[in-house]
């Protein structure tokens, strides 16, 4: 019951924040950053299901993000599909790919899994860079506006509401899933695979399922991002982007949907705030990453919530 209330409360609060933030957004740039943050948050919410709840690492999720983006670009550009159809088709294809790859890969544990997912991400990145006939190569690929039901989403203000809506939906789905028996099974697999299996849980099936879901979240976010920017380069599929995504999840707080969201927002804003420090930017970013993880090892949000609870005297 308390869980349920916290959940609805969190969703309402998020909706309120999304509705109110535009009051403080001065111009298109701020909207743009907000959209970037929300799209990153969508990826992180999916990734958090895998990392935070399922206990599996992926250093290749930028690859799925990029596949979604390129899928949309190629399907709308070359095959002239409607953007929504392209997005759906890309997500389905990415889901299928994750399903096929997931079986063998998710048998691996810990750093071995990190390596395998990293490898898949890098292979995707290389293909995007190399197959320039299809992808435009390192110089990238342009694509058009996003349209749904005859309405065109253009300009960062439109995008803000679209991304906000999709974000809310993602949060809602993620919270529902975690709160269901299936979500509990997922966490059980994290806790002990042998224990979960003994309870009748198909641990590898469960891991594959969440891998597929998280890949599809990434793909959808990638498609939206591509349309929003109007131009994509293979960089979005790079190893660094994958690492950035994982960092967002861990920084915000693993096994916390809202934590993943907070992490995504912060790591999207941070480089923008540090941009004026010029050559010290990297040092400051690195120091902030280290410092946060040292002093708040559970991540920002869980630690904060812990502090507030303690302050209120509830356990």
């Amino acid at each position, binding site marked *: 019951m308390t869980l349920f209330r916290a959940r609805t409360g969190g969703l309402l609060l998020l909706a309120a924040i999304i509705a109110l933030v535009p009051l403080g957004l001065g111009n298109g740039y701020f909207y743009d950053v907000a959209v970037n943050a929300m799209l990153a948050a969508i990826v992180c919410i999916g990734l958090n299901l895998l990392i935070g709840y399922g206990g599996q690492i992926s250093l290749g999720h930028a690859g799925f993000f990029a596949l979604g983006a390129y899928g949309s670009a190629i399907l709308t550009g070359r095959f002239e599909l409607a953007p929504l159809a392209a997005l759906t088709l890309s997500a389905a294809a990415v889901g299928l790919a994750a399903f096929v790859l997931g079986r063998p890969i998710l048998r691996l544990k810990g750093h071995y899994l990190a390596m395998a997912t990293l490898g898949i991400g890098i292979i995707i990145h290389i293909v995007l860079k190399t197959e320039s006939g299809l992808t435009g190569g390192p110089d990238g690929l342009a694509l058009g506006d996003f349209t749904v039901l005859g309405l065109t989403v253009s300009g960062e203000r439109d995008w803000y509401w679209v991304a906000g809506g999709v974000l809310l939906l993602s949060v809602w789905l993620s919270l529902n899933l975690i709160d269901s028996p299936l979500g509990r099974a997922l966490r059980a697999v994290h806790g002990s695979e042998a224990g979960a299996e*003994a309870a009748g849980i198909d641990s590898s099936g469960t891991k594959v399922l969440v891998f597929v879901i998280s890949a599809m979240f990434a793909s959808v976010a990638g498609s939206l991002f591509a349309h929003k920017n109007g131009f994509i380069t293979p960089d979005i599929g790079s190893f660094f982007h994958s690492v950035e995504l994982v960092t967002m999840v861990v920084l915000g707080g693993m096994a916390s949907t809202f934590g993943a969201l907070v992490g995504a927002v912060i790591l999207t804003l941070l480089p923008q705030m540090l941009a004026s420090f010029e050559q010290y930017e990297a040092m400051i970013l690195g120091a902030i990453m280290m410092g946060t993880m040292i002093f708040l090892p559970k991540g920002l949000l869980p630690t904060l919530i812990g502090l507030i609870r303690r302050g209120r005297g509830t356990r």
Partner: protein
Amino acid sequence: MSLLRIENLSKEFGGVHAIEDLSFSVDSGTIHSIIGPNGAGKTTLFNLMTGVYAPSAGRVLFQGKPVTGCKPFELAALGMSRTFQNLQIFFNMTALENVMVGHHLHLDRRLIPSLLTLPSLRRRDRAARDVCAGLMEFVGLSRYLDADAAQMPYGALKRLEIARALAARPRLLLLDEPAAGLNATESREIDEVIKRIAASGVTVVLVEHDMKMVMGISDHILALDYGRKLAEGTPAEVRANPEVIAAYLGVQA
């Protein structure tokens, strides 16, 4: 009728015969204990029966059907449930959630209803919560209802595993040293628990070194040594068996 049959089962680990050409059967509705010295192969036998290990030879029949090669979760779905000697607790969850995971097979596990949180799913889940809380009470863990599993002492975790195994509503329950880490008084409580489980029609296979418990509640005992059958029979028969005394019990038990 025998619920579980083991036929010529063997398991080797790089030259070590942990189980060697072992055959026996477990009758429905009984408490069947397996005893033997450390390293006799009891836990290995459990792992073979529940699909954690694949046997090197031989087969396992459950309810008359061969189940060799089935995965643990498939066997669980057939009604086999177990606890572990090396605890397999979900330390990232609360005690109650641990038990609820045990109840997994009886809940709605479909993806779409889960993503949409259909009301029917919620209702069943809430009902499961009550069932599982009841089971915790049954094994004597009522004070840990809201505790995180990571905060519980060792003895409580052993009981938690029993509750989790029970939550699956098994036909066959395999318990690996349920009394380890419990003092005599606490062990007697577990005696009661096991007896009541058996009385409810669940077949129990028990591995335990607490002879008071084994001798007190078993219908049938199988003694193993070096992976082979040393003796088999009623508690009285096994207790009197000189080989069992020499290898396992010592002078008095």
